[in-house]
């Protein structure tokens, strides 16, 4: 297999604030339901932002010991649920031990999350290296019995797109037969809520949680923390055809560029993000006018949404007034490291359900975000080409193009 040979998505596993099963997530996204609530998993009273899109309890995947699974950290539960579900969904579960299955996993700060959680339970792992010997990537490979290589990628909100790009290349090189790729996070923690809150990045609309995440709306005041993950099974088109596998989409194009400006603040120069989108479209050999849907990064911050709108204007040209754009973070919150992967899932749902999920809480569009919005209600229409933007801390700009098969 060589560069340019098609790579298809044939399996999906996800944990989101809108549910943990594909159909449930799809129904909730297209119904425009918000997953944002007052934080319930720790005492939130002293935090500036008191709302988040938490995930509910993660069921034990079939085949796992329930007691052992319940004892794992939430982040590891998310990873295992997503991987197991994706492998089962794709039909590769039974063959995973006899096939070269790779794993490219977007993780942002696994040790900080695990040490923090342990400390809150009275543990002292942060003071000792003894129990930190095995990173989650290796644990996951071992627990799943995978035979292929595994790496983590970390580019904040853009991690999922980097993971899919890396996995696609492994498949093109023939290094793996099948590759799990995606990203997971469990960032609704005391430190996360406090750190982002003190950065003044989070919405303080504490009295009306479900209206707090409002990308592109004039009344937006910051993002809402979310959490979860999505992992996809990628395989060569030829293999999927031979198996008569259910195909969600082709990973048609990837683009990435860095701002080189600031660790947190988006660059006032839109060129790097424009470059990422143009690279992805060129990689997919598509013109901007052929895009049916853009899942925007739009987190609901005053600065970021405008910056992205300017990027879309530059890339789409005249088509900016006709290509539908929405931000599903209005419903899922900002899932941080998992964001790009969760939004790839939203694109797959748009393609499969032939409907574009809306930006909820978009009642008064910011005039500086003059886009073809899909406000508040899903828009039924066929989606053959979907584009997902993800721009992360550290100045990472990424774009993924998905094509219907």
């Amino acid at each position: 297999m060589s560069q340019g040979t098609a790579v298809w998505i044939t399996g999906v596993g996800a944990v989101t604030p809108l549910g943990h099963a594909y159909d449930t997530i799809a129904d909730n996204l297209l119904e425009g339901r918000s997953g944002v609530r007052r934080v319930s998993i720790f005492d939130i009273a002293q935090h500036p932002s008191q709302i988040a899109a938490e995930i509910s309890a993660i069921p034990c995947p079939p085949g796992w010991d329930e007691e052992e699974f319940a004892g794992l950290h939430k982040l590891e539960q998310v990873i295992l649920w997503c991987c197991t579900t994706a492998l089962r969904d794709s039909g590769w579960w039974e063959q995973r031990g006899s096939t070269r299955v790779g794993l490219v996993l977007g993780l942002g700060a696994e040790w900080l999350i695990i040490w923090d959680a342990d400390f809150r339970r009275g543990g002292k792992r942060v003071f000792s290296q003894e129990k930190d010997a095995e990173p989650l990537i290796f644990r996951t490979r071992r627990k799943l019995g995978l035979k292929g290589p595994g790496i983590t990628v970390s580019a904040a909100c853009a991690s999922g797109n980097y993971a899919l790009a890396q996995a696609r290349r492994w498949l093109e090189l023939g290094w793996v037969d099948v590759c799990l790729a995606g990203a997971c996070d469990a960032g609704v923690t005391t430190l996360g809520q406090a750190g982002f809150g003190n950065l003044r990045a989070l919405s303080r609309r504490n009295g009306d949680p479900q209206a707090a995440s409002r990308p592109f709306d004039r009344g937006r005041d910051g993002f809402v923390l979310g959490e979860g993950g999505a992992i996809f099974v990628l395989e060569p088109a030829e293999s999927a055809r031979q198996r008569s596998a259910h195909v969600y989409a082709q990973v048609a194009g990837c683009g990435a560029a860095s701002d080189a400006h600031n660790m947190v603040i988006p660059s006032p120069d839109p060129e790097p993000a424009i470059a990422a989108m143009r690279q992805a479209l060129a990689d997919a050999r598509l013109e901007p006018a052929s895009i049916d849907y853009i899942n925007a990064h739009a987190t609901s911050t005053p600065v970021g949404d405008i910056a992205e709108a300017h990027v879309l204007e530059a890339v789409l040209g005249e088509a900016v007034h006709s290509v539908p754009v929405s931000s599903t973070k209005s419903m899922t919150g900002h899932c941080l490291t998992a964001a790009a992967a969760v939004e790839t899932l939203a694109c797959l749902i748009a393609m499969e359900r032939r409907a574009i999920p809306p930006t909820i809480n978009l009642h008064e569009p910011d005039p500086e975000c003059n886009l073809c919005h899909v406000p508040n209600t899903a828009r039924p229409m066929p989606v053959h080409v979907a584009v997902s933007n993800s721009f992360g801390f550290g100045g990472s700009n990424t774009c993924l193009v998905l094509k219907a098969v």
Partner: protein
Amino acid sequence: MKPIQTASTSVVETALSCDLRAHHSIQATLDTIVNLRRRPGPGPGERLPHNFLKHADEQTVVGLAAVLEAIHHSGLSETDFTNWGIVAAPSFLGRATLVGALQRFEAEGAWGISPHFIPHRSQHAVSGTISQVLKVHGPNFGTGGAPGSGAEALLAGAVLLEGNRLPGVWVVMSDWEPELIPDETGRPAPADAICHATVLALVPPRPGWQGPRLRITLPGRGESPEFDASKSLKSIAGLGALLQIFSHEIIPLTVTWQFEGGGCVELRRGASIVNPPKWITLERRNARNRAEVTQGGAGTENQR
């Protein structure tokens, strides 16, 4: 860089090769990091705002310093890095700062957490910071996170270089040896712990290149070689020492590290045929300034 199709006895294996255009290693104690934070190195490091690295993690500071020294010592000072990529693999990033953050949270509540904590202690912080200094507009991301993930960083860097057709990729690896673990008062310990950073500038392979070259292979279909942890790339300091050997001595040496999943990274001198290769065992605790070279096992060359 183009994939190389290599016929072996039973399978067709695809390998990636890249040249090691520059490399550098730095070892720094907490005391010396104070100075590096103010002046991390020559060239772009001299033009940074005085507080640019104020909130950066120690591994970021040392990783950046190593990149700047590599540029300075390798004739890359005039190179335009705009389209390069960066992959960084810090190890246990932010442990020491987290202890302080947890204690401040206990004492002061949510307001005690610095807004700089998350941006500068997430795994992408090293690559993101270096991208700002070098004005890199190509891709940047973090990988790994724990000791032993150096080979994965090289794998990710080589794939990025080849797949995105970049002119070069910086691979930045760092760790503490021994691990810097604060005591329960928050004081970093041990005080003489050393932060190591080894950086490599990967570029596409060029004809006639005599310097170090990396080659990355994964097993073909049907092969399932056992992973041998003793042959993984564990020591950042050891890698730095080994690269010094490659730089200063013309020795017929091939070094191979395995990564989980059966693949391997091979380091050897470009334009040279080496047989037999040698395994290099780099013991983490003993590798501050030397590499232990042991003959044993068989390298990838004579397995084919």
